[in-house]
């Protein structure tokens, strides 16, 4: 196998006005990593909304969590 000769690359990106502006700080540091999600919107009736909200409040959870858990339970069942 032939020896590969490296090509030296020292191209700097566009400079920032501040030194810290040159550092990539997105998703760095000690922040809690959060999975990137998608926003899903759907319609329910007023009655359904009231019922979902009341159930979530009774069980100490958010409406979003209730819906996600409900969907996961449904999809994980072999038959329903």
């Amino acid at each position: 196998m032939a020896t590969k000769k490296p090509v030296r690359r020292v191209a700097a990106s566009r400079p920032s006005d501040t030194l810290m502006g040159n550092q990539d700080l997105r998703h760095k540091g000690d922040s809690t990593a959060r999975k990137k999600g998608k926003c899903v919107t759907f319609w329910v009736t007023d009655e359904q909304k009231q019922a979902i909200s009341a159930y979530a409040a009774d069980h100490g959870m958010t409406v979003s969590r209730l819906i996600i858990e409900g969907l996961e339970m449904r999809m994980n069942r072999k038959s329903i």
Partner: protein
Amino acid sequence: MIISIINLKGGVGKTTTAIALATAAQRDGKDVEVYDTDPQSSASLWAMSAEESGDALPFPVIPANIATVRAAERKCKGDQAKWVVIDCPPNGHVMDEAMRVADMVIVPTTTGPADMVKAFETAETLSSRGIYYAILMTRTVARTLTLRQSLSELEERGASYFDAQIPNREALKNFFGNSFGDDLFGYEGVYEETKEGLEDGD
């Protein structure tokens, strides 16, 4: 005078440069302090270790932050007799503050492409802000293609850089935690160029 040692890349010799340059300045009769703004506290550890072994550094090394860097600006910016050498971390807002207050910024870098990329980014930001700076080549190995390439890259980019270089020497690494002897491993030249540059700038 405030001399800030900055590179956006770590491990390029910033702390060694700060301690060696401060030593050269102190030997030339300057009233010198080193400000350690790096959370890794390497300069402070260097000083503490030297003191504990009975070989104390001939100047104080002071843990510093944005507030004390600003205070240094009021106390000694532009003062030829009093030098504050600021050893910076490779990130954090204290680095920007050290850049802002500096009479001169020294940007140490090895000849490695990863270090050079960050040195050029640092230099271009300094240049765009009109801040007096010079890149310092550290751990150089004479008569190598890498060194020649690095020097021609500095020329091509019109970067400001020291004629003096710090050759790669194992002995230099072992001076951590000790005061320097007669040999400053090339930092004598760095000090002379720094001093001349600051005097010319008056």
